[in-house]
């Protein structure tokens, strides 16, 4: 048995821009345990519900995260609509689905780039982000923002996408798909990349369920759970199956994200072919009263929103359980037995978003 040392990892680390802190307990070069600590970037956004009315709060909640900002906004308005008992028009549901899936495409491309960067494949990282730029351009064209869209509202959406633009989006996505193929082949087939990812940080099927992992981390371990199957927004009318890989290692989690990238592009095509004409919003009258829990599938996994309203324009309580928070225990399961050099890679495979987690 080697000598035990404790090495602090983060909150400032060259590989991870996220302020995740781990105290790694090492035996020589092997990790035997890790103690996480979070709370470096707490902003107190949940408390703001008491000071901003429920319409304004949408713009605050969107700023919980810079990557899945749209899905945070969507989750918030779904919670408020749930308290009101509002049924939004079908076109608005489809538009929300299109934007949510575009967010998934851009989030997964971003993650693939970061993953490539983590094992030192810089040109692949740049190519991934070059392709992602096309998706950001679609966002700017349709919503007005590249990162924060501000397009959801309680009762529908602010902006419509006309049918010609929808067709053009599909054409752009065809190009994105074609260009991504060349890139994702590297993640799937490249010998050196597989050396770094195969068999590293295995999370077994039972462990994944026991620690309550979510999203691609969970599906990479063979659990077919995807909240989009609940059928919120327009997902009920779309044809898809959760993507599952059995191995539970870094490679499996990468493959899940690669396949989800193509699945999302396919879902957008389905949305564009099925989108009905009509209104994009309904009028909202009065103030909400009651409580509601809504669950959505983010690129990183399941996100849970709880809102309680008391009949005034300010909510009483609002709570977000973000996917990274659920995936940190899974990370602690993966770490023991890994080499110190693999720790940044493992931390990255749960796609950590600490600013989400701490809000």
């Amino acid at each position, binding site marked *: 048995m080697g000598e035990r040392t404790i090495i602090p990892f983060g909150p400032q680390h060259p590989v991870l821009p996220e302020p995740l802190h781990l105290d790694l307990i090492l035996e020589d070069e092997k990790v035997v345990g890790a103690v996480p600590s979070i709370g470096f970037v707490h902003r107190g956004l949940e408390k703001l519900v008491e000071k*901003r009315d429920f*319409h304004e*709060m949408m*713009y605050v909640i969107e700023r919980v995260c810079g990557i899945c900002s749209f899905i945070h906004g969507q989750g918030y308005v779904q919670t408020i609509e749930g308290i009101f008992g509002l049924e939004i028009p079908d076109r608005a549901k489809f538009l929300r689905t299109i934007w949510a899936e575009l967010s998934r495409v851009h989030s997964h491309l971003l993650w693939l780039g970061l993953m490539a960067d983590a094992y030192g494949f810089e040109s692949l990282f740049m190519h991934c982000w070059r392709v992602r730029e096309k998706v950001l351009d679609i966002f*700017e064209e349709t919503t*007005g923002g590249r990162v924060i869209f*501000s397009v959801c509202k309680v009762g529908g959406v602010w902006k419509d996408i006309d049918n010609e633009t929808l067709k053009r989006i599909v054409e752009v996505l065809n190009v994105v798909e074609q260009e991504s193929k060349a890139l994702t082949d590297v993640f799937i087939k490249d010998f050196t990349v597989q050396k770094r990812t195969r068999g590293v940080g295995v999370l077994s099927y039972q462990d994944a369920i026991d620690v309550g992992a979510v999203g691609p981390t969970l599906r990479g371990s063979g659990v077919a759970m995807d909240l989009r199957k609940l059928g919120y927004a327009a997902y009920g009318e779309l044809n898809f199956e959760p993507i599952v890989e059995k191995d539970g290692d870094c490679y499996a989690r990468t493959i899940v994200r690669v396949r989800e990238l193509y699945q999302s592009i396919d879902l957008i095509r389905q949305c564009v072919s099925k989108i009905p004409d009509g209104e994009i919003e309904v009028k909202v009258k009065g103030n909400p009263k009651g409580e509601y829990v809504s669950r959505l599938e983010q690129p990183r996994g399941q996100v849970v929103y709880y809102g309680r309203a008391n009949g005034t324009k300010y909510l009483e309580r609002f709570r977000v359980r973000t996917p990274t928070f659920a995936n940190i225990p899974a990370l602690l399961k993966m770490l023991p037995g890994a080499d110190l050099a693999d720790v940044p890679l493992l931390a990255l495979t749960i796609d950590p978003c600490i600013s989400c987690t701490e809000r």
Partner: protein
Amino acid sequence: MAFNVIGKTVMKSLFGKPATAMYPVIKNEFYPNTRGNIEVAIDKCNFCGLCSRRCPAGAIEVSKPDKKWEIDRTRCIVCNFCVQVCARDSLSTQRHYTVPMTDKSKRISTSYGQTVQEDA
């Protein structure tokens, strides 16, 4: 096969267009929907103050007696909510972003309505 891949990549790199934008020479074009700088058409404004009450960041200040409309550019989060709630369509987003500033005293931009300017 591997030779083909490398050959293609080399040819693309040698004869293809650059992947990056030639930024200072060719400026990025904005879309009609782009949310940029918030601008007020002060002659249409009736100083009702709806934008100021709705602003999630508290960046806008409106004073009816002075006919004054004021925005703090560094507080504004360009969410477009003020533009959408304005009943008289006096607010709009421009096709360019707020210019970065190093002098904090220039962060507030103020517009005065017609009558006040005549008085002064």
